[in-house]
């Protein structure tokens, strides 16, 4: 079989992250650069950020995952927008 093209690889990873019940994440960006896979976006907790990697490692054991996903900022807002 031919080497999987980056487009299909992105599609398979995104689909796994959305459909695997452990992650159920649609809000994560996936970029493939050769054997490197970069994740970005935001999730609710540190645990969910780590779960992304678990799902990907099972799917693609040979890629190196760079997990730049951030955890949601849940502080009080600093401003009120006045709509006039």
């Amino acid at each position, binding site marked *: 079989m031919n080497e999987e093209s980056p487009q299909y690889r992105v599609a398979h990873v995104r689909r796994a992250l959305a459909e695997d019940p452990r992650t159920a994440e649609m*809000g994560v960006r996936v970029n493939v650069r050769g054997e490197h896979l970069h994740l970005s976006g935001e999730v*609710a*907790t540190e645990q969910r950020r780590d779960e992304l990697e678990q799902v990907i490692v099972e799917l693609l054991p040979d890629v190196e995952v760079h997990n730049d996903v951030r955890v*949601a*900022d*849940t502080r*009080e*807002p600093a401003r009120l927008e006045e*709509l006039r």
Partner: protein
Amino acid sequence: MIRIAAVGDVHLGEDARGRLRPALDHLADHADVLLLAGDLTRHGTVEEAHVVADEFAELPVPVVAVLGNHDHHSDQADDVTKVLEDHGIRVLEGEGVTLEIGGRRVGVAGVKGFGGGFAGKCASNFGEPEMKAFVGHTIEIAERLRSALESLDTDLRIALTHYSPIPETLRGEPPEIYPFLGCYQLGEVIDDCGVDLALHGHAHFGCEQGVTPGGTRVRNVAQPVIRSAFATYGLES
């Protein structure tokens, strides 16, 4: 001034329990009402709904919500709604609610909404049954928003949806997926009925501010967009 707090896409589950509570404990300093723009859970289970209910329980202001696509994922939307309503969260799907705030009547009309895309780049009610079912759902929900808005006789009217009524607040998302993020039919109803503020979520990579073709302010309050526990807006009454 009427102060509206709003957030969508909190995607709560057991692992996220209590995350918003420190900010919510000071909610009365910021707002007169809290609106939740859907995707309150991750998988749409009853267990997750209980986490949501606990998170937003016993707040000093009324809490009004719509559900999102994630809240439908386990086919338990009715049970999720019941858990939230039993804990004092008003869940809207084609209804309006009237709140008394500072002597003014504030109406909130809510629906989940759906995709379909925006004028000129959208799906049509044509062809295979699957396609007609998709667009039929879009149209049905938009008409439910219309009746909800029409039922409100209030000083201010707010439209609360999960999917977006305009493409502008989706900027940051790939344009190819806009048809899965919102539909023009919601915007059209909002413009037909006259609304003071439209709030939505769903587009985690979108941006906060936009305006409908008719001039109604739209705010995308998805938590990854607003980057705080909730956003606050002040409306002149």
